[in-house]
């Protein structure tokens, strides 16, 4: 039971506050909003109960630290140093002294309380507008204690949503390929972790090469490429049960899989006799449909969020370029016309943009363009990087980057990186091992 946790969510007070604080996330934010995250207050009895179960000295402080780190990582917020806080957490949660918080230049304040109730963890939290001296939001959750990090992520989602007007992306996971060993013989395993890098788990043992995992829309299943028995085929993996099965009975390599937005189909490439075309397989009735039929390489397909269109890359114009077609394969249109090669198109969950990898003059770029090919914008340039995946709110891209080796061929590494759609806030995403092929889940369902 990885994903199906019980969350009871209730609004403590139905409040209609005016949005006085606003964070504009459409531009690079050079002045992150200063906010104070007061540690969740906790009574002594609850504290010792949680300490016994979770081996954490003060779970209130731990949950607040999750929220603080999440907000800091966005680059949109500047969580203030706790040493400067004048008011104690328990009192602040009842009624903040706004003058005190104003003094340290906090514009928003998060307070809350955690208690141990019937073997469960109960959290309530409040978001305050310091300048206006008003409560903006108050929520409470009850869940199993082991879910405490997710509580932190859900609080972050709520705060982010209230302050930016956009859905959050914190109660999410990343599936990726963990890499170890020499560049000439990498050991690769499927791995999954929370978006902040915690709770890392390996899903395969590394006995066979695995590539390009992608979540189903409900995050229960993963589709990926495995070289099991040296036959590269698209597989399905149920994350809860660990059950794996090959997708379809193709007499050759299948690769580049993704789910359709309704989760009912897998779209992928099938390579035979030197030609790769795009196919779908219906997971219910197993019916296979051929979508492209062209002597060129057609691969990296991705559905639009409404399921009506497919973007993919093809070298039918001699070099790799991005195309869009109807979901039945009709009306193929090339959309990339800039200099260089274009690949790995992936449709934004908002439907307006397509993220891609571009190779031009020996450099690799991650960029975005509109679905009609206009408005191309390159976000980042590097020696090697590719395979962007969108955060569920369409504001952040995660991708992987590989380093150049030295003259002896040493020093290779592969890491995950993320960047805002604005081109700001580029940073490495910490992983236990080297990592590639990241895929971002949707919100886990808070």
């Amino acid at each position: 039971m990885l994903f199906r946790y019980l969350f009871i969510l209730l609004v403590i007070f139905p409040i209609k506050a005016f949005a006085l604080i606003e964070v504009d996330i459409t531009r690079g934010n050079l002045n992150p909003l200063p906010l104070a995250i007061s540690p969740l207050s906790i009574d002594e009895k609850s504290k010792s109960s949680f300490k016994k179960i979770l081996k954490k000295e003060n779970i209130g402080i731990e949950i607040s630290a999750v929220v603080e780190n999440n907000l800091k990582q966005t680059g949109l917020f500047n969580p203030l140093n706790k040493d400067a806080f004048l008011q104690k957490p328990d009192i602040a949660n009842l009624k903040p002294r706004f003058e005190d918080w104003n003094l340290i230049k906090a514009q928003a304040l998060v307070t809350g309380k955690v208690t141990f109730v019937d073997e469960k963890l109960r959290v309530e939290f409040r978001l305050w507008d310091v300048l206006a001296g008003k409560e903006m939001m108050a929520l409470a959750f009850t869940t199993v204690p082991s879910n405490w990090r997710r509580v932190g992520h859900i609080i972050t989602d709520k705060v982010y949503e209230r302050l930016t007007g956009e859905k959050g992306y914190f109660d999410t996971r990343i599936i990726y390929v963990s890499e170890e060993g020499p560049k000439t013989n990498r050991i690769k395993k499927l791995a999954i972790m929370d978006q902040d890098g915690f709770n890392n788990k390996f899903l395969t043992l590394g006995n066979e090469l695995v590539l390009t995992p992608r979540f189903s829309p409900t995050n229960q299943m993963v589709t990926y490429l495995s070289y099991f028995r040296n036959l590269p085929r698209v597989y399905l993996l149920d994350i809860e049960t660990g059950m794996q099965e090959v997708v379809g009975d193709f007499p050759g390599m299948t690769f580049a899989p993704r789910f359709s937005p309704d989760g009912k189909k897998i779209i992928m490439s099938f390579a035979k006799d030197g030609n790769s075309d795009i196919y779908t397989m219906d997971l219910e009735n197993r019916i296979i449909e051929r979508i492209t039929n062209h002597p060129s390489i057609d691969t990296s397909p991705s559905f639009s969020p409404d399921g009506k269109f497919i973007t993919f890359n093809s070298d039918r114009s001699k070099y790799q370029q991005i195309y869009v077609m109807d979901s039945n394969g009709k009306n193929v249109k090339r959309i990339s016309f800039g200099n260089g090669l274009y690949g790995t198109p992936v449709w934004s969950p908002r439907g307006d943009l397509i993220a891609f990898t571009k190779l031009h003059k020996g450099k690799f770029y991650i960029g975005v363009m509109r679905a009609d090919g206009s408005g191309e914008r390159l976000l980042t340039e590097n020696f090697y990087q590719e395979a962007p995946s969108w955060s569920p709110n369409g504001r952040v891209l995660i991708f992987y980057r590989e380093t150049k080796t030295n003259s002896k061929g040493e020093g290779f590494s592969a890491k995950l990186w993320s960047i805002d759609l604005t081109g700001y806030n580029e940073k490495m995403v910490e992983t236990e091992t080297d990592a590639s092929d990241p895929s971002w889940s949707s919100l886990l369902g808070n």
Partner: protein
Amino acid sequence: MNLSKILKNGFLILVASLVLTACATQKKTTGQTQGDVYTGTDSVEYLASGVKDRVFFATNETVLTTASRETLRKQAAWLRKNSKINVVLEGHADERGTREYNLALGERRANSAKDYLMTYGISSDRISVLSYGKERPVDSGSTPLSWSKNRRSVTVKAN
């Protein structure tokens, strides 16, 4: 007679000028690449005496060079003599491409070698194809020379 001679000469001149253009656009001559196809012997193994196990490709290309075709003809001759041996053609790409496209490119390269072996009388039943894309480079360097060694189709005994 005359006309064909003229045409022939003209053709030679054309070829010469093409080669010159190719040389002019070539960035570096390492002595181990031609165009950007690897011509050296690093990493090359032998299926039998004088029978090289691999052929190399230009960037983003799947066309067999003259040298590659010669290697494959020798492989075909060897396979005809050893009719019980089956082979896997392992197609590879360099690291300068996206992973998924490279899987397709590796498959296409291996098939380009397979087609050539078939035209020299080797039954398709004896040849299987496996693409590794950019997953199994032989040279871990980040130089054009390293990349040229990695763009390859390797013929491996399957039994």
